[in-house]
């Protein structure tokens, strides 16, 4: 029996000819990632167990992105723990304020991760890098400590769901609408412990930013990873960017999938996930009765250049509704700079939006846009759980940058 793309990658990393669903394997990791929230816990476990040196200082990435520039003394101390460790261990891929970006936008942009890699990160959205045809998954801090110490991680080989994408998206839709639609179809545990493998001719019509967004939210369906096949789009994205030459794997023709889901991209409409689960999807046009207080455009899901351009095209020459606060956060310093150079930030400010340096801030209710009791926000982020962006009686609606920007002008949710 053949292997899926995920099985191919895992077998290679485990030094095995073949793996099958349910096998417990010990796989070599190419990059181990942590942020300012999860790394301090990993460092504590690493030191407590008596380790004093990481397995390879070039294969560890520490990105300060959740609460930086630090929001208070406690988060400053957490950042300092990461910084001290990074300097002590001579971590090559350490990104502090000024160099940092939101981790899952930053690492692919800089070419720290590449195709064929096995990547673990102490952040659930580490599944993002499946877009560049890597096996990439979120783990906890102790897993991060184990990988930093040994260079390995244990995995159970997951069953796979094949998602066949057909056709082409309408111009008002993007990768965000695709992944929200899929989560709406299968639910927040529809891919629990499984791999989501995106195939089909429709993939060729999706940009790398679309793919990164789609894989980013694989976890919101409970998936272990999401992954696209390597193609010309992957190749041209990685060219001149990747630090190491990536590997290319392909699923066998006779690979077995637990489920096959077909999505016709032409049929997808601007989609919104209503509170309090990403699976509560509705068409944006049916939510015109939902007035909003705040808009957030950014995050590891939608803070890349195409997202900024989508918001710019809507907001340019218009005004954010008088009773709406619109917060825009480019995900990396390069995206931020490009927005400045192209005059995009000037237009955002002219429209009445506020623009921040990169941070995860509001997405997880950290800072930079916390909601009061009863307030509503439409956000391009990835989760709308109870209390996710502030008060437990506030509400978050998830959407694409275009839908969020349109809603910012209208003052209510609109497509």
């Amino acid at each position, binding site marked *: 029996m053949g292997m899926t793309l995920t099985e191919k990658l895992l077998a290679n990393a485990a030094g095995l000819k073949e793996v099958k669903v349910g096998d417990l394997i010990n796989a070599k990791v190419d990059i181990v990632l942590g942020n300012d929230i999860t790394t301090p816990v990993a460092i504590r476990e690493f030191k407590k167990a008596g380790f004093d040196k990481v397995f390879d200082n070039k294969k560890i990435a520490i990105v300060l992105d959740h609460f930086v520039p630090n929001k208070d003394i406690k988060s400053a101390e957490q950042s300092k723990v990461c910084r001290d460790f990074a300097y002590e261990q001579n971590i090559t891929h350490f990104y502090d304020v000024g160099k940092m970006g939101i981790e899952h936008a930053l690492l692919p942009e800089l070419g720290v991760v590449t195709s064929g890699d096995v990547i673990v990160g102490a952040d659930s959205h580490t599944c993002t890098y499946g877009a560049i045809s890597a096996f990439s998954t979120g783990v906890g801090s102790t897993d991060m400590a184990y990988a930093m*110490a040994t260079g390995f991680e244990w995995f159970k080989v997951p069953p796979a769901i094949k998602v066949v994408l057909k056709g082409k998206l309408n111009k008002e839709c993007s990768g965000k609408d695709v992944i929200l639609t899929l989560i709406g179809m299968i639910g927040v545990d529809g891919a629990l412990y499984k791999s989501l493998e995106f195939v089909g001719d429709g993939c060729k019509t999706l940009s790398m930013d679309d793919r990164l967004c789609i894989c980013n939210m694989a976890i919101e369906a409970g998936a272990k990873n999401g992954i696209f096949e390597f193609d010309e789009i992957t190749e041209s994205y990685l060219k001149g960017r990747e630090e190491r030459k990536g590997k290319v794997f392909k699923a066998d023709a006779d690979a077995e999938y637990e489920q096959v889901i077909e999505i016709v991209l032409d049929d997808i409409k601007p989609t919104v996930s209503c509170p309090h689960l990403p699976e509560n999807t509705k068409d944006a046009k049916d939510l015109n009765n939902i007035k909003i207080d705040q808009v957030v455009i950014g995050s590891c899901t939608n803070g890349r250049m195409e997202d900024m351009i989508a918001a710019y095209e809507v907001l340019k020459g218009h005004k954010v509704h008088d009773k709406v606060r619109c917060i825009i956060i480019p995900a990396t310093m390069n995206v931020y700079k490009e927005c400045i150079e192209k005059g995009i930030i000037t237009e955002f400010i002219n429209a009445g939006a506020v623009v921040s340096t990169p941070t995860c801030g509001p997405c997880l209710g950290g800072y930079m846009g916390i909601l009061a009791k009863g307030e509503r926000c439409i956000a391009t982020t990835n989760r709308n759980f109870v209390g996710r962006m502030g008060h437990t009686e506030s509400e978050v609606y998830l959407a694409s940058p275009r839908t969020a920007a349109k809603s910012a002008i209208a003052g209510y949710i609109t497509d």
Partner: protein
Amino acid sequence: MEGKVFKYGDNVDTDVIIPARYLNIADVKELSTHCMEDIDSDFAKNVKPNDIIVALDNFGCGSSREHAPLTIKENKVQCVIAKSFARIFYRNAINIGLPIIECEYADEIDNGDTLNIDFEKGIIKNITKNKEYKINVFPEFIKKIIDAGGLMAYAKEIA
């Protein structure tokens, strides 16, 4: 060991187990006073050593924050029983030595029930309802991690 049940539903996410606004706190003891705060504001006050959290599907979904199982463990919860767990929470619990049990009969257990869990025999006794549920055993490799006392202790053993 006997314990009282704190029962919750489907998709208990790590944002309600430990809200992100507290993730700047490094001290686990302080952090644990906010455990389950956004789903059950008095949990940390009411929970006693050996009590048991029971939930339905996809317990621990969302963020990878290990702070979630850590604060549950710090509150001396004996174990978490759910119909299914989100995969990162499942790994984290095993890695830090918080016992978890996948049990398809979780919906037969109610808030306030008294359970007696026999890990050796693999049986959950519902004393309140006079019922017994069988526990699925862990695969051998995962047992090794648990027996070593968590993943880092296991790493030391094999190093």
